[in-house]
């Protein structure tokens, strides 16, 4: 029996041929592949898509929305994405980089603020002057930082940095001019003053309007002023603050009258120049209604300047004179030329600044300044 069992246990065992083995394996792998395909189709259910959906949403939240907000000038103050935009800008500013690049970034951001101001002027117009004023104040801040960085650059980089500042100033003047045109002379006084002062400040960098300010004694610590707290009653405390910032930026080297006689003489000069400006504007075929509005605003400021003298409030007076001169200097940005609108194309913005009226006004100031210096 044991012998039989051992014989039976030694019966031959066959091995599957390699060819057959491969054929079977191929069949099995095909089945596995089919199963995977069918599972993959089944995985399109909502539950299985949740991780993909979550990834997609995170991608939107982290990359696409901030990217969209950062690159879009239409995202302005008041928009819910605006803080995201500003946050990214802060990161950009704080990145370590050479001073030259910092200057370029500050200038780029200042231009971006001006673009936003333009968009706001387009969208909200005169309904939300505070937003435009705040945006302009931001632009002024950034511009000042750019200038500081340019000053602090080493000798090698100063020329390059100043080139950046000057080129940016040209573009910014154009942008501010657009904002002024969109806002118009009929707008809120504070807003007009902000734009006019910003224009003056930017043009200082272009070295076109130095003459005007050089005619007055310099005052590094000039305090703020009359018009910033003028009683239009429309601005919030924030916007008033930002308005003051704009004025402060543009006033650093400006008027600081401290005696009654000086003040009266300055007002008289301004008054004469305003009259000259009116003649010039009328002669240049600017829209009479707008010229009238402009004159009303300037005359109101002059009258209030007299009041300030009566009240011995020289800070207010200095502010009023600043804004009056800024508005007069940049009057043509706010009003429309009839010929220009009829022809459908206007003069280059630079021409505003070179026009007879502006030059006469500034030259008159220069003369007066020289007299005072003597």
């Amino acid at each position, binding site marked *: *029996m044991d012998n*039989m*069992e051992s*014989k*039976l*246990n*030694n*019966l*031959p*065992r*066959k*091995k*599957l*041929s390699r060819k*057959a*083995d491969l*054929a*079977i*394996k191929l*069949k*099995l792998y095909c*089945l*596995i592949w089919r*199963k*995977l395909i069918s599972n993959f189709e089944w995985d399109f259910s909502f539950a299985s898509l949740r991780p993909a959906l979550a990834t997609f949403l995170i991608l939107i939240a982290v990359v696409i929305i901030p990217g969209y907000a950062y690159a879009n000038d239409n995202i302005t103050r008041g928009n819910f994405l605006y803080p995201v935009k500003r946050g990214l800008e802060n990161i950009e500013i704080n990145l370590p980089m050479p001073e030259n690049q910092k200057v370029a970034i500050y200038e780029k951001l200042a231009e971006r603020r001006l673009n936003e101001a333009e968009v706001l002027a387009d969208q909200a117009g005169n309904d939300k002057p505070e937003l435009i004023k705040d945006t302009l104040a931001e632009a002024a801040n950034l511009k000042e930082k750019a200038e500081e960085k340019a000053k602090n650059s080493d000798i090698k980089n100063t020329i390059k940095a100043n080139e950046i500042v000057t080129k940016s100033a040209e573009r910014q003047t154009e942008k501010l001019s657009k904002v002024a045109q969109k806002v118009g002379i009929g707008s809120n006084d504070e807003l007009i003053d902000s734009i006019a002062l910003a224009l003056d400040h930017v043009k200082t960098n272009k070295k076109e309007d130095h003459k005007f300010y050089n005619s007055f004694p310099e005052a590094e610590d000039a305090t703020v002023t009359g018009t910033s707290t003028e009683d239009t009653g429309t601005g919030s405390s924030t916007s008033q603050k930002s308005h003051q910032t704009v004025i402060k930026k543009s006033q650093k080297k400006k008027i600081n009258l401290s005696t009654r006689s000086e003040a009266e003489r300055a007002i008289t000069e301004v008054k004469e120049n305003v009259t000259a400006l009116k003649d010039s504007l009328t002669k240049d075929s600017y829209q009479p209604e707008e010229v009238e509005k402009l004159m009303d605003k300037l005359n109101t400021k002059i009258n209030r300047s007299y009041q300030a003298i009566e009240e011995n409030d020289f800070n207010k007076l200095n502010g009023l004179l600043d804004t009056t001169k800024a508005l007069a200097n940049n009057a043509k940005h706010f009003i429309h030329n009839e010929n220009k609108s009829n022809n459908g194309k206007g003069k280059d913005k630079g021409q505003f600044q070179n026009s007879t009226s502006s030059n006469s006004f500034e030259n008159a100031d220069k003369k007066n300044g020289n007299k005072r210096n003597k």
Partner: protein
Amino acid sequence: MDAKDKDFIENYNKFKDKIYTYFWYRVNFNTALAEDLTAEVFVKAFKNYNDFDTKKPFQAWIYAIAHNHLVNYYRTANREVDLEQAYSLSINDAGKLDAKFELERIVAIINSLEPYCREVLQLRFIDQLSNTEIAQMLQKDEGAIRTQISRAMQILKEKIKEYG
């Protein structure tokens, strides 16, 4: 490929030769047919592998499938005849293989035994299954299988003596 698929492929590599041998001995040593049946069994097993309880032995399960597949193969009207013929021809075929070899002769004699004897002997000695595995596969009691194997061995001895 998930873990279960990998597990199945591992089991295939482990049992492919055994299942092939199982068929080879039962289809009259027809290599091609044994290969086809082996392939069909593993495909069938793969399709049903999700229902397989991995705690149970794979060997018993795959042999059960092979056994059922073979039964189905011979169950069709034409093949029933073939099945009988296959077993009756076994002795002659054994001669073809070379009757001089005792083991082959024994196989031929096993194939000529009654089905219940033939089955247990093949499973025990050719497929090298344990009594327990045979019992699981044939769904019988282990003791009964032991008795059946003992009786089948006795009959086989008598037959060998008979065929000289």
